[in-house]
């Protein structure tokens, strides 16, 4: 702690920070541009100038950039000093000499950091009377729009894109007042995190291109706190709606999960909600029907038939629970393939019963050694890759700290650290985008990755069995990895389900457990496949095969399939047979799928945007998402449909559950692993000063007239029975509880920079604690129960290829690829081969290869990749029309 005198007032502040951070934490309004809490200071924009005084007697002081000065004890500074104020105003004056003043047509208008700072500094009159410079804009692909004339050269874009996220194709060009930020030539931005530019850029240079296509001022959006639906990490998002469609997704700051950023799948994947082929009406036997007809039909079926329910890892725990309740415990099946089901259970077992804690993304960022086994994180869990990228700097940064360079001094630390990285040990099937920072890279078949894990674990704790038949090189590699991990203070081991290998996950657990013996700060991250994989796995339920068998063996005749395309999760033949044998197939979903096309009854479910629900991320953190807008009376949450069905059919228990809260309480009571989930947000009757928390900003416009073409009298705003958020602009304007922040705003701070006001300390936890409830906490003092069976050596076999999945950030996820923007980035199916295998097969890049795997015949063009291990081939995971199961398996080559 230190005492800091600001304009002669003493304040207690934490040391180690710079003056800007400290002032912002104190809630003072000090303008800035180039500083960013996650990226530190560089001193480029000169906007944050203040005065520093030597002592009480120094009346003149010295102008400094507050972001570049460390706070010291008994320091005296002034924000209100006239010279400092004049200088800050003039900074805007300078920036405006070339800015086009085009707020009226700029997407950033109304939530623009530059606008806010202009007002804050009081710059109102332009003295520059000469010609402005102009730039050419670039086409940067489907996600990000470029309008360089608005640039104020704060360098944040390149600092985020290159330095923070490791992107290579965006940079700053030229010099003097001609500096240009963009690509070397037009073309799609390659970084998986490019969308963050829209939030990082303080003005309208980089904006969300998808938003532009149905643009709305941000103050005209109805917004709700949401959770990303597109992978297992559970990044917090804000979803905004106008006129019944989702317009935009932005980051929702979370101090432990996603921090300030989200990936492009998460940001741009939302358009499936607005897709023209969305299911919007109930259909029964080919005819569009109303709500009551559906409910009555289901009532009849529930009475007359033997009904099973198939749940979904992409549906909320409420929806899965409601389905389970409706059909009965023993008739409820998780809709995931066998392998995935087992792995998810294994993950729970490892995280719950093993001694190692699973860290949050923020904790991964702070790891000082990372070992990745079998995951191409950039594609399977993108934000985890971003966290690992930060972790790779932790150890070198510690050296900078020793040289007394504070961690927020961004360029100085980078100059000191240079290209030092890691340790980051990466064992994957083929090259990944983290390779550029990896200390050691190892490409091998999944079993060999597992073997490396065992070898490493053995070197840390000899009670883990060693691997046999191991080459000297590999032994040395294992030695180096073991040494690197042992030396670390906060090592993190990362693995996950995308390797589809139980052995890999077990090996990862062994490594973490072995480390934990001597280092209780060890972390183990297991990524899963879907946004609620873990939540579903925490609830009882049968395997998908059980569901198939129930029908095949006539134990049941009717299936309710909820938010699940069975063709993803089972072989085509099996699913075909299953659907055919069902007397009635009832599909509850929001998005059409091959399964739905075979349904007798189709019920339109709400997407996340029209729903309340809870998801459990890979960290075991239960998080709630809120309905953004009321949909029609027939589009509603799956769980609400299921409740309606239950009530209608006379299910007594279900009749007692009137709303979200009731069902969530029931889950908490009944599902031991989900105990406490009802506590993660305040109850629906929660009020602050008697008021709800408004989903709409107070500047929301047009409410009285926006539907005047339909009805001139303003409809009554919908009531929200499930939460204390309102659907209007009226309500409490102060800080909402951290789990319920519908948008960030503070007087004078209309841009996302207002997040500062919501944090206990800038860049730190949200006030009142970050949201969500961790459902799994390990007991680090437990003795590990090692996995003892080491996999056998992987031997290639002639005329066969061991085929594994490779994940794609765009394409492997079922929902986001329906987004028009994301769809443009989805690859065509292919088979990835090692060059020597390709040579042996006499196949060149792009030529087709035919093979049979699990009775499925494929003909795919070949892509050659020199990092692929011999005898192994990879196929993109679950592209449209392809299953998400059945691999790894031997593929038998067919002569063409």
């Amino acid at each position, binding site marked *: 702690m230190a005492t800091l005198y600001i304009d002669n007032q003493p304040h207690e502040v934490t040391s180690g920070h710079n003056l800007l951070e400290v002032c912002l934490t104190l809630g003072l309004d000090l303008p800035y541009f180039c500083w960013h809490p996650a990226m530190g200071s560089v001193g480029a924009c000169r906007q944050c100038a203040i005065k520093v005084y030597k002592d009480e007697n120094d009346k003149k002081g010295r102008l400094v950039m507050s972001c570049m000065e460390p706070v010291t004890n008994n320091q005296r500074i002034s924000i209100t000093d006239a010279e400092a104020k004049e200088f800050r105003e003039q900074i805007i004056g300078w920036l405006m000499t070339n800015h086009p003043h085009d707020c009226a047509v700029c997407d950033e208008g109304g939530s623009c950091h530059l606008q806010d700072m202009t007002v804050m500094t009081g710059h109102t009159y332009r003295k520059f009377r000469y010609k402005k410079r102009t730039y050419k804009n670039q086409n940067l692909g489907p996600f990000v729009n470029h309008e360089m004339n608005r640039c104020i050269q704060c360098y944040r874009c390149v600092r985020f894109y290159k330095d923070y996220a490791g992107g*290579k*194709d965006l*940079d*700053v*060009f*030229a010099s003097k007042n001609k500096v240009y930020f963009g*690509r*070397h030539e037009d073309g799609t931005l390659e970084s998986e995190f490019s969308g963050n530019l829209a939030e990082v850029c303080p003005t309208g240079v980089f904006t969300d291109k998808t938003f532009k296509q149905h643009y709305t001022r941000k103050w005209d959006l109805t917004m709700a706190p949401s959770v990303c639906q597109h992978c297992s990490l559970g990044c917090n998002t804000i979803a905004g709606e106008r006129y019944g469609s989702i317009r935009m997704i932005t980051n929702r700051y979370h101090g432990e999960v996603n921090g300030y950023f989200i990936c492009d799948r998460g940001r741009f994947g939302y358009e499936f909600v607005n897709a023209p082929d969305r299911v919007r009406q109930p259909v029964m036997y080919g005819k569009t029907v109303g709500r009551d007809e559906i409910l009555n039909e289901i009532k009849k079926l529930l009475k007359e038939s033997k009904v099973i329910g198939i749940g979904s890892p992409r549906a909320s725990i409420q929806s899965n629970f409601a389905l389970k309740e409706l059909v009965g415990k023993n008739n409820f099946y998780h809709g995931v393939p066998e392998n995935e089901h087992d792995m998810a259970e294994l993950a729970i077992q490892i995280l719950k019963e093993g001694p190692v804690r699973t860290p949050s993304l923020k904790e991964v960022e702070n790891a000082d050694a990372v070992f990745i086994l079998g995951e191409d994180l950039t594609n399977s869990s993108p934000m985890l890759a971003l966290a690992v990228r930060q972790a790779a700097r932790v150890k070198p940064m510690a050296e900078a700290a020793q040289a007394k360079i504070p961690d927020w001094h961004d360029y100085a630390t980078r100059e000191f650290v*240079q*290209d030092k990285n890691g340790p980051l040990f990466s064992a994957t099937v083929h090259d990944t985008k983290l390779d550029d920072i990896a200390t050691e890279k190892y490409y091998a078949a999944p079993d060999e990755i597992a073997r490396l894990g065992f070898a490493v674990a053995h070197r840390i704790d000899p009670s883990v069995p060693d691997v046999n038949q191991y080459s000297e090189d590999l032994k040395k590699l294992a030695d180096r990895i073991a040494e690197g991990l042992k030396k670390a203070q906060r090592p993190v081991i990362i693995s996950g389900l995308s390797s589809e290998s139980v052995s890999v996950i077990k090996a990862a657990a062994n490594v973490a457990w072995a480390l934990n013996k001597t280092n209780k700060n060890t972390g183990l991250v297991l990524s899963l496949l879907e946004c609620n994989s873990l939540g579903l796995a925490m609830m009882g339920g049968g395997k998908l095969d059980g569901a198939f068998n129930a029908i095949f063996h006539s134990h049941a005749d009717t299936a309710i399939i909820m938010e699940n395309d069975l063709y993803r999760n089972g072989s085509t033949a099996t699913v075909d047979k299953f659907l055919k044998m069902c007397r009635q197939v009832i599909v509850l979903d929001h998005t059409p799928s091959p399964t739905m096309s075979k349904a007798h009854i189709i019920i339109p479910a709400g997407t996340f945007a029209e729903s309340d629900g809870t998801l459990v991320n890979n960290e075991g953190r239960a998080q709630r998402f809120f309905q953004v807008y009321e949909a029609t009376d027939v589009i509603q949450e799956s769980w609400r449909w299921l409740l309606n069905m239950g009530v209608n059919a006379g299910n007594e228990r279900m009749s007692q559950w009137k709303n979200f809260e009731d069902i969530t309480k029931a889950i908490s009571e009944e599902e031991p692993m989900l105990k406490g989930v009802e506590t993660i947000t305040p109850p629906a009757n929660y009020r602050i000063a008697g008021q709800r928390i408004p989903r709409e900003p107070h500047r929301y416009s047009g409410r009285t007239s926006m539907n005047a073409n339909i009805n001139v009298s303003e409809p009554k705003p919908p009531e929200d029975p499930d939460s204390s958020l309102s659907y209007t602009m009226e309500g409490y304007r102060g800080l909402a509880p951290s789990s319920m922040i519908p948008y960030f705003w503070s007087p004078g701070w209309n841009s996302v920079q207002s997040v500062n006001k919501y944090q206990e300390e800038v860049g730190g936890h949200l006030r009142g604690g970050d949201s969500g409830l961790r459902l799994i906490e390990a007991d680090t003092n437990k003795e590990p129960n090692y996995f003892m069976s080491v996999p056998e050596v992987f031997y290639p076999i002639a005329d066969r290829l061991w085929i594994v999945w490779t994940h794609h950030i765009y394409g492997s996820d079922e929902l986001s690829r329906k987004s028009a923007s994301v769809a443009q980035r989805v690859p065509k199916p292919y088979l990835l081969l090692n060059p020597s295998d390709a040579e042996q097969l006499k196949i060149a890049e792009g030529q087709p290869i035919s093979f049979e795997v699990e009775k499925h015949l494929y003909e795919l063009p070949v892509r050659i990749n020199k990092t692929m291990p011999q005898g192994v081939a990879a196929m993109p995971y679950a592209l449209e029309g392809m299953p998400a199961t059945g691999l790894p398996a031997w593929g038998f080559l067919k002569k063409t």
Partner: protein
Amino acid sequence: MLSKEEIKEIDKAISIAPYKKAASVEALKAVQQHRKWISDESLQEVASYLEMSAEELDSIATFYNLIFRQPVGKHIILVCDSISCWVMGHDKIKEKLSELLSIDYGQTTADGRFTMLPNPCLGTCDCAPAMMVGNDLYRNLKTEEIEKILNKYS
């Protein structure tokens, strides 16, 4: 494709740097020496040799005014436009050059012989006005001499 000599020069620069990228300015210089300017293609080649993206290298290339990212003539004329030469009447020199070559700053003669660029102080202020043609420095310039000087360059 980078030529053998180009690669040799780049490798030499790499050999004294702790990592490849650090040789970027030297590499651009070496390639420009052989090719006169850095085309997009040259940029890509150098970038991939140094294991950088085209963006990263272009960011550097476009920063320095003597790395040419546009085609230039066979000989570069750098006219000093800084203070001592300005005082001593560099404008007349420039006008004479423009008259003889029919080009302005930033332009290349129709026959591709010369490109004329303004350049800050050439460090020979006691002998102003001054200019350089290729590697040759000309000081105490008089407008009358210019034509003779230019004729030396084919």
